[in-house]
């Protein structure tokens, strides 16, 4: 468990462009003078993950295998409303403390659902494709990184993002058998999670 948590944290760092060394001042982009970044809310977030990962919306995230993550589990926490029974007629003005936890759970559910499908039906795999039985090479890791960014963020990764995620493979593999298929699986899930829990995926 402790290892999983540390890997999840590391995955977050791996995908975080903000953590990269600052570029030279001349290249720094102009900051918005009036930023109005908005939270996607749970429903839009799940729809985007569903579209990108190719997992039906109704099955992409089920808490305890039966409760839809947005409609039934985290609706209010993730910016939804429920007037008739809960009397929450407008979204909460400020995200509650538990919102990031809920987002992380949703992201991990969705990515795990996708990779489980990839393992079950390799012919229709979206993220975890091929790679052979042994330790995968750099080309496979780069191609998988490309697939993750395309599916989750709908763009190609930058060179720095690719480098970080590829390097992250070694952290996942550390102390585990080199030929273990679990290493590849965990790396793809956590790479997907890193992209899906990024600011870019959650806000717009």
């Amino acid at each position, binding site marked *: 468990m402790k290892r999983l948590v540390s890997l999840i944290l590391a995955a977050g760092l791996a995908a975080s462009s903000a953590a990269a060394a600052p570029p030279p001042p001349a290249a720094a*982009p*102009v*900051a*918005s*003078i*009036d*930023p*109005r*970044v*908005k939270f*996607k809310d749970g*429903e*839009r977030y799940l*729809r*985007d993950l569903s*579209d990108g990962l190719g997992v039906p919306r109704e099955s992409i995230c089920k808490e305890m295998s039966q409760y839809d993550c947005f409609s039934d589990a985290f609706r209010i926490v993730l910016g939804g*409303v429920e*007037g*008739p*029974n809960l*009397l929450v*007629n*407008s979204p909460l003005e400020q995200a509650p403390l538990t919102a990031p936890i809920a987002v992380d759970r949703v992201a991990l559910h969705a990515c795990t659902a996708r990779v489980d499908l990839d393992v079950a039906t390799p012919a229709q795999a979206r993220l975890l494709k091929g790679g052979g039985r042994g330790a995968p090479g750099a080309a496979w890791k780069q191609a998988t990184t490309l697939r993750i960014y*395309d599916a989750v963020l*709908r*763009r190609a990764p930058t060179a720095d993002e690719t480098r970080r995620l590829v390097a992250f493979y070694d952290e996942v593999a550390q102390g585990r058998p080199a030929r273990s298929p679990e290493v590849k699986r965990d790396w793809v899930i956590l790479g997907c999670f890193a992209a899906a829990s990024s600011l870019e995926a959650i806000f*717009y």
Partner: protein
Amino acid sequence: MRRNGLGGVLHAWRRNRAGGLGRGAIALTSLASGVGTAAIGAAVLFVGPMLAPPAAARPPAPVAFCKAYPGSQACHTGFADCTTCHTVAPARNAFGTMLSERILPGAPRPLTDEAFLAALPSALKAIEDLDADGDGVTNIAELRAGSQMANAGSVPKAVACTQEQAERSKSAAWNVCGYDPEYAFRKVHLDFCGRSPARADVEAFRGLRGKPAAWRESLVSTLDRCLKSPYWIGKEGVVWNLANPKIRPAHTVKSGDNPGPVPLGDYDDDYNLFAYANSGDRDVRDLLLGQYFVERTKADPLAFRVLSEDELAKRGRGTRQPVVQDKRAGMITTRWFSAVHTMFTAIPRTTAAQAYRAYLGYDIAKMQGLTPVSHEPADYDAKGVAAPQCAACHSTLDPLTYPFTRYNGISGGYAYDANRLKEYVRVDGPRVAEAPASGMIFGQPVADLRAWAAVAANSDAFAQNVVRDYWKLLIGREPDLRDQVEYTRAWKGLKSADVYNYRVEKMLHGLVLTNAYGQP
């Protein structure tokens, strides 16, 4: 008086309690916790001033302040917010304290309203160049910039890029110094369709960069498509949820489809009317003026159908709309609205307050939109509202309420009845029957609720409120000083026959092309 079983029980309970509790609180007692928010708000309105010390806030002050600074952001609704001068009225904030010290210093308190109003302009002038919150920015500069005069953490912000920033931004991934079509394209997809655009669509759109006519056409066609999506206009979609604070649904007392245990009214009628008036080529003033009901005949693409009066008359007891057609006033005379707000009340102040808040944007419980009427409140139902501290708000609220007094709530079966108030004499005293059907809104006399609704629907406040709802939803904040030009253009355009002509979808086409929407 006609009463159903539940009505009879609650009415009896209300009568029994009337001897032991404060009068105003009884009249506003809610049916259930599920529908009690408005009632609680109104009860606070009544009880709150009784607890306040004599040096209360000045009801005429918000209007008088805005007479002095009509173009300021603080006055964009026509009334300054109480927090301009108060923390929680009557306690003053730093600006209010500074101002108070210069209003007739040495004169015995409390001042009369006349003396206060006469002295206010010069006192305001005297502190313009001072700095109440000590943040280094003068009061007048903060007032002009829209920052808070009593909050050192609130200072004017830069609202424009420098020339150098603008040049650099043009070639960057995001043009943060101007309208960025690609940013707007993504937002239109997420806001109106509920999902991000496909990567191929973004790349195709990017190919239109530098071709304004082409990208506008693409943006508009995307918007048109999304405005018909279930995500936007469908059941429990965005527009549906926009109506939640206005309708205040409570499943416990829902009738019709999926009824609750005590089925009083079906708010599906209200949601359908709201979505209908807010979509297609339809006049949004029908929220207050519509005399019809609609149903959804298809979910995707959504289709509505106006119900005939025959169809309405054939409905079952729990879903009938008893107000006769020529007495209807859109969303504020539906069975549901009367059931949860009027309930058993003779002078249904909660109903009027909710109509004023939901459709005109003025919350009387926060002392907004006060336009006191002389010799009011007359207190026809003997609730004690003529006491000076209550009258501050009730001199506006009560004349606003009289036109609602002919519309029954739960008792009386939700129907219009010109003689309704005679039924309340036994409980509320003989004068209750003298309460007029005519009233006042925004200082204008109105003969009845239809006239009330007409003044309301044609007011600036209504148009501002419609646009403000969508502005908050799509821009992500209340319109402020940075948005003043575009926000004003939007609500004035909504009113103008030559621009949006009260068509919400047309207004939204304009809104997505504003810098407020499309500048990252």
